[in-house]
């Protein structure tokens, strides 16, 4: 993480996250990320789309510090939280202990309880993780991310494994939480509608770089029926190489 530099002053100041010229390759293969640039403002919600294998998770892993920066610079806040597609809860710790894992202080349980209430899991505080449903487990993972009061929240397809109905509820939950916490968010998703419902900006990763950067200026709450929604949807699908007949 020594490669993560402080944000340079000047034009780029005032951004929560700045990625400049980030290049990433595995072994001697082609560059998965190829001189990628990306900036995210504090409190901004960005959706990251792209084909499978385009490098979305690779970018996210670099942003949360799991992978080192070898080429280029990344500056990000120190308080970063991640939610993955799988909840990654420790099965041998109760839900509340998972939420405040690694946190110190006598009020751990109280804090866990508060944030679990916030995500609608107040009734499963003492449950074992393996007894949670998929949606509940993701709520717990979200609570674990939020209890650290992150300035930057990374979500790697957090709802991909959920059924359609649960996904809708979770999208609503994330939207509410974001309004309340106002952290910068980078949401990796395959779902164009999800991006349009939640994000301020949708970016598409293609051949190692951000090729499309689409501001979503719709008022919230957003509706699929909105004609602007339809137009943005067509634009995004086009940039993903999917053409409406």
């Amino acid at each position, binding site marked *: 993480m020594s490669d993560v530099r402080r944000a340079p002053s000047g034009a780029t100041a005032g951004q929560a996250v700045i990625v400049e010229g980030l290049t990433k390759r595995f072994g001697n293969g082609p560059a998965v990320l190829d001189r990628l640039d990306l900036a995210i403002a504090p409190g901004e919600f960005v959706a990251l789309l792209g084909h499978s294998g385009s490098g979305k998770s690779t970018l996210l892993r670099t942003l*949360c*510090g799991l992978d080192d920066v070898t080429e280029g610079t990344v500056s990000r806040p120190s308080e970063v939280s991640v939610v993955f597609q*799988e909840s990654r809860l420790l*099965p041998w710790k109760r839900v509340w202990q998972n939420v405040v894992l690694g946190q110190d202080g006598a009020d751990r349980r109280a804090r866990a309880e508060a944030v679990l209430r916030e995500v609608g899991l107040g009734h499963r505080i003492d449950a074992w*993780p393996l007894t949670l449903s998929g949606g509940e487990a993701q709520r717990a993972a979200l609570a674990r991310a939020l209890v*650290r009061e992150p300035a930057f929240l990374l979500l790697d397809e957090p709802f991909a494994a959920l059924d359609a109905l649960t996904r809708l509820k979770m999208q609503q939950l994330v939207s509410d939480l974001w309004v309340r916490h106002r952290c910068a968010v980078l949401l990796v998703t395959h779902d164009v509608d999800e991006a349009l419902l939640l994000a301020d900006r949708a970016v598409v990763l293609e051949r190692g770089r951000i090729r499309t950067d689409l501001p979503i200026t719709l008022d919230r709450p957003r509706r699929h029926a909105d004609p602007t929604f339809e137009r943005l949807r067509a634009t995004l699908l086009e940039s993903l190489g999917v053409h409406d007949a």
Partner: protein
Amino acid sequence: MSDTLIGFGARQRTRPALRVSGRAVAVRLRRFLSPVLLVVAWQIACSSGVLSTRLVASPAQIVTTGWSLLHDGTLPTNLSVSLIRAVSGLAIALVVGVSLALMSGLSRVGEDLIDAPLQILRTLPALALVPLFILWFGIGETPKVLLVALGATFPIYLNLHKGIRAIDPKLLEMARTLGLSRGRTIREVILPGALPDLLVGLRFAVGISWLMLVVAEQVNADSGIGHMMMDAEDFLRTDIILVGLFIYGLLGLASDQIVRFLETNLLAWRPSYRAVGRTS
């Protein structure tokens, strides 16, 4: 259990359940039936002289002998000697096995230094070391305790090492993103994650401990259940030998129950644990 008075519709539904539980009782009785019949047949064979008591004592004789051994103090003394040997050997094995597994499971250097020699050593049958142990350590308590320790160390080491190596890398990654220190990751993620494997190892280790002890006490000893049995052989006391066998059986059963108890309590987080434990 479901024979309380309930509404009409519900009662109809409980009837098949009642029949099932009745069948369950029958199944349980049937399980006891064959051992009981066997003992009865054995007693008849002995009483009628078909089976010579020089070869096998009768069940009644075994019970009386067991009772008198209990009363004259022979059994309690020898049993406690055997128990102390087994427990101290197992304790040494736990400390050594767990330490080695931690060293080789948690560091690459440790793995290179420890794992290869242990993988080679474990292919040696530990019982083949009995003569060497007697040469090295004489005939006191040391060789017996060490034999138990040696045999029990391997299953503990192998299973715990495997458990540590098999921790889901996604959980380790998660620990990193949460900023957990190395020590904390070991304590909160790696060790609890490897605990199920450690308990499997412990179960094997307990079984091996008794095996090692039986051999160690029969080869050379002046006390212990094994010695009591070998002594009885000189006087053709098959009843005492059979009492010893029975005690070994009980010890094995009891220690297995203890490990099972540990498993159900320490692994309460596994929702299916009880069901899995029952069927195995």
